[in-house]
């Protein structure tokens, strides 16, 4: 066999590719769920992931008081403490991401569907007066005061506007999503303590080699990521297939109007869908910080596009497809960057997306949440 990089490191690449792929798969679930139910690409989903990584960071440094370094060494924990800490960080990230996804839906999407509510009106009014303040005043505190003062009257008029129930065209959803996505990332980049620089997350898991196979050392964090992702996906599939709410999700995905006539609370189902996607993204975020020990304000963008690629690759709207697509993309990307060089890694994902869309736009497994064949 020739001594190519890809041949020498094939199994290494496979392991890291699968780990990366399971993170893609988890984020892809969010795209797939929302697409299945709303026929909308939730462009801002990537920022929900980013928020998740920051929640994991804050949970571990602020709530668990884990320092970055302990006596010049990583703050490793062992045994029960480690498991407890990891689970706590996981739930914190999942919770915040879930809440964030639901808030996003209320603010950026629901008003466009023509049934905006008080929460959306108040949040949008706050944002409006905040932005107006931002143009004229350059002091965060003063901005916040202006924003709070302006919220009341503006939200009143917004609520009156919402009463009209005006529905926006299809493209408007996507543009609104792009706006929200940019705004969330920029807000973190502007007001985060490190601004636009990279953040380190404390490394509490010692990355020991768990076992060796085929000449490759498999690290424990990779195993946790892959197993964790599989577990979360199984839980999600069970939820969608077995529970009442899950049945609602499938019903709305199939036919929203009929589901409404048959008594499904469509708005609730949409909230549940966004929450599920957010929770999965939060889980992915926690696993991501565990493996890569870092985060950044714009971390979501590239990862989001790749996860979307994974979702499309497997067949958007299809939960199993997200898993398959995630793994495939992770592997292809890793092998590809071994062949063409690491700097082309992102290009490979885009090219894969393009080829898939051209050759088989419905993905490998086909679109299927809509046909209740989850």
């Amino acid at each position, binding site marked *: 066999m020739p001594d190519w990089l890809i041949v020498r490191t094939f199994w290494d690449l496979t392991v890291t590719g699968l780990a990366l792929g399971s993170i893609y798969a988890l984020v892809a679930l969010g795209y797939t769920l929302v697409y299945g*139910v*709303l*026929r*909308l*690409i939730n*462009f801002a989903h990537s920022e929900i992931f980013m928020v998740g990584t920051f929640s994991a960071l804050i949970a571990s440094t602020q709530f668990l008081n884990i320092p970055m370094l302990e006596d010049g060494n990583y703050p490793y924990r062992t045994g029960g403490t480690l498991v407890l800490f990891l689970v706590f960080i996981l739930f914190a990230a999942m919770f915040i991401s879930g809440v964030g996804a639901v808030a996003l839906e209320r*603010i*950026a999407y629901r008003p*466009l*569907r*023509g049934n*905006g509510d008080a929460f959306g009106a108040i949040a*949008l009014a706050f*944002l409006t007066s905040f*932005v107006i303040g*931002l*143009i*004229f*005043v*350059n002091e965060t505190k003063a901005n916040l005061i202006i924003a709070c003062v302006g919220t009341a009257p503006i939200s*009143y*008029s917004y609520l*009156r*506007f919402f009463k009209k129930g005006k*529905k*926006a*065209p*299809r*493209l*408007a*959803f*996507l*543009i*609104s999503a*792009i*706006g*929200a*996505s*940019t*705004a969330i990332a*920029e807000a973190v980049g*502007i007001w985060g303590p490190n601004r636009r620089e990279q953040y380190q997350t404390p490394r509490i898991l010692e990355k020991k080699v768990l076992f060796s196979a085929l000449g490759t050392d498999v690290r424990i964090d990779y195993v946790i990521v892959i197993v964790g992702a599989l577990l979360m996906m199984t839980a999600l599939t069970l939820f969608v297939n077995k529970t009442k709410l899950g049945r609602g999700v499938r019903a709305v995905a199939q036919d*929203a*109007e009929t589901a*409404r006539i048959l008594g499904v609370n469509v708005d609730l189902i*949409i909230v549940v869908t966004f929450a599920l996607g957010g929770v999965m993204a939060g889980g992915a975020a926690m696993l991501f910080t565990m493996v890569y020990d870092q985060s950044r304000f714009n971390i979501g963008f*590239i990862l989001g*596009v790749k996860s979307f690629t994974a979702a499309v690759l497997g067949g958007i709207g299809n939960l199993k497809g997200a898993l398959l697509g995630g793994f495939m993309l992770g592997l292809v990307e890793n092998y590809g960057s071994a062949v063409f*060089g690491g*700097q*082309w890694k*992102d*290009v490979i994902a*885009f*090219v894969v*997306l*393009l080829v898939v*869309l*051209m050759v088989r*736009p419905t993905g490998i497994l086909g679109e299927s949440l809509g046909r209740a064949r989850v």
Partner: protein
Amino acid sequence: MSRLWELWKRLQSLSTDVQVRWKSMSRVQRLSGYVLAVLALYLAPWWPKIPGIGWLVNTPGTQFSTVLNDQVIIFVLVALGLNVVVGLAGLLDLGYVGFYAVGAYVVGVLTSQHASLPWLVVLPIAVVVSMLFGVILGTPTLRLRGDYLAIVTLGFGEIIRISAKNLDWLGASRGISDIGRPPSIGPLKFGVIDPKPYYWLGLTLVFLVVFCLHRLEESRVGRAWTAIREDEDAAELMGVNTFKFKLWAFAIGAAVGGLAGAHYAGKVGFISPDNFPLQLSILFLAAVVLGGSGNMYGAILGGIMVAWLPERFRNFTDKRVLVFGIALVLVMVFRPEGLLPRRVRTKSPMKSASGGQEVAQ
């Protein structure tokens, strides 16, 4: 707030009054009006010197004519081009910065990096190459539906940036410096210090583009675009070759983007991949959408706003992506047609074009 709304309505009725009066003027009067307006635009670098209202437009921190050229002209040109794609044909292109970069890089490569042709010769080449890129990008992607198209174009924008960053042939991350400048004609000297000649050149380009796009919009091509935007399937059934016209929209949009990029490169003399980040695509989109997609004058207004506001109010120069990101959401929620909506003869197409949205009520 409702007061403000009334004020807005009153302003609108005032503008209709002005329009009516304008229509009733004689031809000579109208012509002189046009000439005066054009003259005023060419004299724009001196606007801040006007007593009384000069401070309104003046930009603290940056020379006004620099802002006019480097920001306003560029954004207006780009908004005009993107408006063809997004506003007229209804194709959401998120990688528009890619064409802008192609235009700039063609000028960079042919005037400095690998050849030293004069800028004026390279300008048409840049436009043609950008157009070719539009066709290359469009041919495989334009069969996709709207939201898929958005993601794929986004990917293309990134591919172009990453390629520029990694290919030594394009100067890699060092970028390209000493880019050729437009030739000096008599007293018009295109140098480093005075941005005014560039502004005049840019303004001329804007007029040229506006003229061409206006002719195009009124032609068969423009009507085909409108048909595609309103209902692609219906257009196809009525015998419009949708793919061909979508490709045309893409190519023409790309050409204008390339023109803007070439103008930019000629002015600043140095480009690097960092000049073409994704955020720029979002700002371009914001310009078109805020101003009013589908209306050329709306796009121009949007371009001016996105470029000039952050310079006028220096507080938010570094927060402008945030501000315009939030503005995108707000505009989509409350006024999806933008500030200057396009004139429609029948019922508003923005309302009726909600095809497929019935899923999500």
